């Protein structure tokens, strides 16, 4: 995983609430491997394309100022619904490394962290302000400072955000969680010995 420290990049605003993982990655692409070179084109596929296969110019990522966006700013209950990990993979493969929203589907939130995508929760009014700034200045950049846990908006205002230490550690180090957990192996083995006594039936 690529370490995540400070990112300054174009941010795409998207106002809809309840954007579920079926919209982020339609179910028919679930069977694609992460290494599929077409993967970036699956992100928001049915919102990006019209039924005849042409691009929908109304969708934010199709608009020239936002084409290189590496940050996505959504609305409440972002990534709810199906637990598909592929929704987070789609953001990563597309090149979006950070998603900002007032609230997330919690499985999606965790999948983002596991796939090197930083999910940031900020208050609803703050996110609404950031989105309206980005609408007003298409192609403007945000700065995400993970070590300092701050989002710097278009006007230079700093918004602190919360993230648990474990997720932050993984993202900053670019380390796999499996390696970090295997450092606890002696504790896992001790637990298993106790558990076999009390829960032999399991």
């Amino acid at each position, binding site marked *: 995983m690529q370490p995540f420290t400070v990112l300054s990049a174009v941010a795409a605003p998207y106002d809809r609430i309840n954007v579920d993982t*079926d919209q982020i990655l339609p179910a028919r692409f*679930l069977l694609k491997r992460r290494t599929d070179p077409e993967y970036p084109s699956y992100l928001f596929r049915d919102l990006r394309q019209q039924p005849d296969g042409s691009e929908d110019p109304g969708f934010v990522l199709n608009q020239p100022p936002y084409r290189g966006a590496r940050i996505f700013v959504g609305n409440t209950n972002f990534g*709810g*619904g199906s637990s*598909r990990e592929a929704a987070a993979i789609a953001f990563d493969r597309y090149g979006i490394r950070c998603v900002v929203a007032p609230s997330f589907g919690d499985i999606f939130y965790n999948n983002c962290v596991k796939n090197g995508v930083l999910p940031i929760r900020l208050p609803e009014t703050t996110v609404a302000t950031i989105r309206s700034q980005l609408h007003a200045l298409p192609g403007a950049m945000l700065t995400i400072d993970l070590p300092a846990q701050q989002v710097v908006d278009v006007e230079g205002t700093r918004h602190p955000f919360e993230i648990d230490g474990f997720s932050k550690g993984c993202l900053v180090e670019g380390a796999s969680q499996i390696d970090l957990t295997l450092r606890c192996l002696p504790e896992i083995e001790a637990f298993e010995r106790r558990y076999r006594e009390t829960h*032999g039936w399991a």
Partner: protein
Amino acid sequence: MAQPRSMFQKIWDAHTVKRDQDSGEVLLYVDRLILTDTSSFHAFDLLRAEGYKVRHPRTIFGEPDHFAASRGPALSDVVDAERRTMVAALEENCRDFGLVHFGLGDPRMGISHVVGPEQGITLPGLFLLCGDSHTSTHGALGALAFGIGGQTAHIMATQCIWQRPLKNLRITVEGERAPGVSAKDVILGIIRELGPAGGFGHVIEYAGPAIRAMSIEERLTVCNMSIEAGARSGMVAPDDTTIAYVKGRPEAPRGEQWDRAVAYWRSLPSDPGARFDRELSFDAGRLSPMVSWGNTAADVVAVDGRVPDPAGEADADRRRSMQRALDYMGLAPGQAMHGLPIDQVFIGSCTNGRIEDLRAAASVARGRRATVPALVVPGSGLVKAQAEAEGLDRIFIEAGFHWGHPGCSMCVGTNGDTVGAGKRCVSTSNRNFVGRQGPGSRTHLASPLTAAASAIAGRVADARDYLQGGA
């Protein structure tokens, strides 16, 4: 004296390996992991690439369900080469890593959330995980179970998962259901009150006399849909009904271990005075059969009710999203749901693909004719065999319904069974999202009774008219 604890807290504590002081996350020990055919390949790719070993292969079960074809039980029936590759890959991965696998053609195969309880893989007090979000289903037996998305490789390699503490919501369901009102209607009614994100971050314990009175299959339906209220999981405390259901299942404990297990399960229900983060009560006695009109499971009305008017909604975002849902669904505010013409019906899924669901649907279909295409897909090979032993397949086939082979089928359409663009389907599944049953599909969630009645009428119908021998 020890603090009174909720059932959720007891299971959580029993599985706590350690707590990380910095993050507050807890390392939990996992009893069972179920892998489906859609997403587990990401995990195996990772295990191989990094050279990790699977810690306890016999606690992991591979179950191809999303791609299983309803037209036949063989790999060659699977709709295309890409999906056949995925199903074959799950089998091969299970073999290579020594995991248990219920493959296509195995009489025990089926939807993970149907097979788990059926085989005794799911037991009270266990901590069970699966990549699929409807893993909340298994909580009906008094297990802690939830969907985990992308942590499969981590669990296989460590037998553990890191988890932030969850909140605990108890919903006490009172009242006696009227005839024609099923467990599906109860959970749809509850989700309408909670909203699509109202259970966020919570494990829901369903309690109260209306839940106690339910069969295990009905409780599975209720817990299944917890995720549609944004909750992590749903649970019902184990009782005599649970223990009678579990006894003798292939993977259930036997002999002296059985007695020890039962003694432990009896200690699981929440202690009197246990603290919950939230408590709600719900009256199942006033409920009618429900049907959804929008694109979340909270968008439901009574089958004899009307489509709500966005103009009556104060919140602007919510108003816009209601309007978008009505546009997508091709509905107008104030329109009656009852009598709405439909194009097809789907009966099945991990919500309503069990034997009691098929019996309910068959009770309406018996001696009548479907007037729109209707597909019935049993949740597992064992459900199918049982239904055929009872002659339910004949009832459906004589009524013009299509009788399929087990799998997820039209719930999500990944096996090729889809609802066409702009077509309206009454479905016993759990999700009515935009495009869920195929691009442009319009899904109306309902119970097996309502779905069967709607297939006969060719319209959204009230099953109570059929149960009373009417229409």
